[in-house]
């Protein structure tokens, strides 16, 4: 199984990793495109209004930050999503999604704690898969996505990737 210095993931594991990469990556590509380009109502402005509604960043002093985040968050989702799907720098890309999901989940928890009546706006105007305002469903969804992202950050791209990552032989993982 192992070579002298490096080895790749097994074929069955690689298939699972490929599927997870494509699913998770596509979700985040869709989320980014819906925030930046698609949907009614001038999407980046709409997303800025969504960030404002979470009331994590004070509106009066934080307007430049909110305006930057309205572009930076979807671009981070897009970059990580594309890298995951094609299988290039997959582990850092998955790790970036872990960081983002932790931040998003924190913001959702804050909204629930404060009892704000806020729509998620995670997928632009789409209410998928959790309808209505933010609630427990969003926490469960994010927890699931976080688990997949963590798995990919740990196990890597598998062998079916543009640039399969390699594992040191001295750290067998199977």
């Amino acid at each position, binding site marked *: 199984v192992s070579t002298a210095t490096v080895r790749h993931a097994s074929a069955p594991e690689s298939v699972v990793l490929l599927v997870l990469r494509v699913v998770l990556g596509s979700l985040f590509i869709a989320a980014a495109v819906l925030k930046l380009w698609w949907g009614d109502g001038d999407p980046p402005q709409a997303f800025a209004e969504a960030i404002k509604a979470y009331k994590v960043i004070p509106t009066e002093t934080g*307007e430049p930050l909110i305006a930057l985040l309205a572009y930076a968050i979807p671009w981070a989702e897009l970059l990580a999503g594309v890298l995951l799907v094609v299988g290039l720098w997959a582990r850092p890309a998955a790790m970036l999604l872990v960081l983002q999901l932790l931040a998003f989940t924190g913001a959702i928890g804050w909204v629930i704690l404060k009892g704000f009546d806020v729509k998620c706006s995670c997928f632009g105007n789409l209410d998928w898969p959790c309808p209505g305002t933010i609630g427990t469903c969003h926490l469960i969804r994010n927890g699931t996505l976080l688990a997949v992202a963590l798995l990919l950050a740990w196990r890597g791209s598998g062998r079916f990737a543009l640039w399969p990552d390699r594992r040191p032989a001295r750290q067998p993982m199977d």
Partner: protein
Amino acid sequence: MGCIDLLCRAIALGTLAAGVGAVHSVVGRDAPIRVTRGTPPVVPVNPPQAVDPAAGTPETPAGASTAPPAAVDPLDRAGKPGSLTLREAHALWEQGAAFLDARRQDEFDAGHIAGALWMPAARVPTTDGLADLQFLDPGATVIIYCDGGDCDASENTAIRLEGLPTPFTDVRIMGMGYSDWVAAGLPTQKPDETGSPAEAAP
């Protein structure tokens, strides 16, 4: 790849994305993203009266403050600083001012201020939204409401109206919400009912 190394690479990717986003935010739009109104709130035409003249308080002792907040008529509460009270908003409604409802569609459909148009912020730049707004004179008094408290929807719509190619110049926010309007017994309607002062206005 160790854990710290992985984290560093992830942060590097995030920084790259933030940089691309920053460039995109500059080159991607004619007008910058706004989440606060550039102009200070319009001063109401009828300034709120601290004391109702009808009630008259001649026996107020000098130096004693006898105006606890609880004594203020709900009609005279502004809800938010610089916003219209229910009394002021209703006076403007009677003058035929346009009312815009910034709440969700299901809330609007369940009932709204008589004559109000459904206009949440995201609808303003759409074909439907612009078609509705065409009926209004950009210089006319426009009053936006949602449902009071910490709802930002009115402000978001105001920002969009003031950022249109032909901006609306007299946009005001009714700080008290729709439920306060209903509680005060002021006129409401359902979408299928007719008789809209907003559409009758020039």
